[in-house]
């Protein structure tokens, strides 16, 4: 397992995570992620042959609920926290995506 990260690897992960890291952070995270994963490598020798993964610890299933239409948040309220919204049209505004 790699416990050493190259700058290129850090840049690849940052791109996947939608983070624009500064130079300093690239250096820092290369070291720190290496340390953390080096530490996490102690899991590798544990025998997990045939052991199912646990993704959730939900003990009791609440079961199915009625498929009823209930009121939700009003559009005006939903838009109220947006950094850039068109209240007249009722949409979130973002930088141009096409063209």
């Amino acid at each position, binding site marked *: *397992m790699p416990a050493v990260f190259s700058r290129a690897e*850090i840049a690849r*992960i*940052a791109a*996947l*995570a*939608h*983070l*624009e*890291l*500064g130079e300093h*952070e690239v250096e*820092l*995270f290369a070291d*720190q*992620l290496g*340390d*953390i*994963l080096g*530490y*996490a*490598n*102690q*899991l*590798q020798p*544990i025998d*997990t042959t045939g*052991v*199912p*993964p*646990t*993704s*959730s*610890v*939900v*003990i*009791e299933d*609440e*079961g199915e*609920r009625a498929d009823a239409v209930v009121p939700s*948040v009003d559009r005006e*309220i*939903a838009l*109220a*926290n*947006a*950094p*850039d919204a068109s209240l007249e049209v009722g949409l*979130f505004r*973002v*930088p*141009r*995506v096409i063209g």
Partner: protein
Amino acid sequence: MAHTTLSAARTAWQVGAHSAVELCEASLAAIADQDPVLGAFTEVTADRALSRAAAIDRDREAWAHQPLAGVPVAIKDNLCTAEVRTTASSRILETFVPPYTATAVAKLEAAGAIIIGKTNCDEFAMGSSTENSAFRVTRNPWATDRIPGGSSGGSAVAVASGMAPLALGSDTGGSIRQPAALCGIVGLKPTYGRVSRYGLIAFASSLDQVGPLTWTVADAALALSVIAGGDAADATSAPHPVPDYTVGLTGNARGLRIGVPRDLLNGEGVDADVATHVQQALETLKARGASIVDIALPTAAAAIPTYYLVATAEASSNLARYDGVRYGFRAPAEGRDTLRAMYCRTRERGFGAEVKRRIMLGTYVLSAGYYDAYYLKAQQVRTLIRRDYERAFEQVDLVAMPTSPTPAFRIGERIADPVQMYLADIFTVSANLSGLPAISVPCGFSTEGLPIGLQLTGRHFDEATLLRAADAYERDANWSVHRPPHVGARTHA
């Protein structure tokens, strides 16, 4: 008057000894006096609290039968409160005012409690010291050069210093129990599903749980009785009926079998004072009628790496929603920005270092080529940890450990070394990985005068036994009479 328990405060209102306005004013005065030094609150909702208190006082009849009428409470700032700013101590949510209230908070308000303010925490609850808040430093009232623990550090300090008799926190890997231990109070993480997570800002959804921080076990039982229960808005909440958890507090531990994982306790990194006081607490429980049994939790030693792989994977997914479009901070446009450039710059500027580190780690362990080796492996080890506890609970009713391997460390001491910081969670993360309820109760002080916590872990949905044992211990040991020295703005002026 500010130095009072939850039970005492509600009784004071019920018998008419104090009005809700007086209780709120006492809390607000304690905050005005101490919080400039301690930094527990990110926002104090004085006007809202006083007007609600006045309304409750005006209509005593209607509120007379509500269990928490007139009592001021503090809420960790990752629980949504409609009309009150909710930031999760992050720049990216600095201006966020939620359109709805978290179910646990709404239940407190329906029971007559009054929100006095929102408490500081590690950004998005990621941390063990509250040093990762984007906004302020929170100090331990027992020694103000020390961290209060985290991530619910502000909630723990608010209660420990008498600014509020009850605070809500959230616990993903120890974030209620560890700050409670380090501040000398009681912190309860309920069974996964016992309390609705609706309106809790998600960090790691399979681990997160909401719970109370209080002075006494009886107060934790009272608070849990109010906030527990199934919720149509949270599909992972459990439909079990909610008992009155205060009824079973008999002061008696007779017949209880308490397991002690000796290997873990004797592991490196456990402070000698912590080991001594936990051992003394076990003797006390024995004197109250419990039997103490050595048990093995062979995989629990691997709980920290398991936790940090699972929790960061879930965090990287949960935090993808902060992109500067629907709410929160958006980085100002630069030239002809693309949508992608806006996302990346917003997240770069909006998140702090620890959050970015965890998003990076989580993204990596979920990425093609590494998923099986890290994420899947951690989920399999998680199964082994659960099985360790299942086997233990065939033999015993509760498992006892320290809450934290050390008392509160100094501010700044571990911030540069993430792995050192993560080691603070060695005894707490297994309960989250297994979904089990666990409580931290004060069990003494280190030679330096810093609080130490005993942790008890119980079976799924058996909070009643957990609370009964913790209460029996507390009555004997009575550590809760010890309060931190007064830390006031006046004394530091």
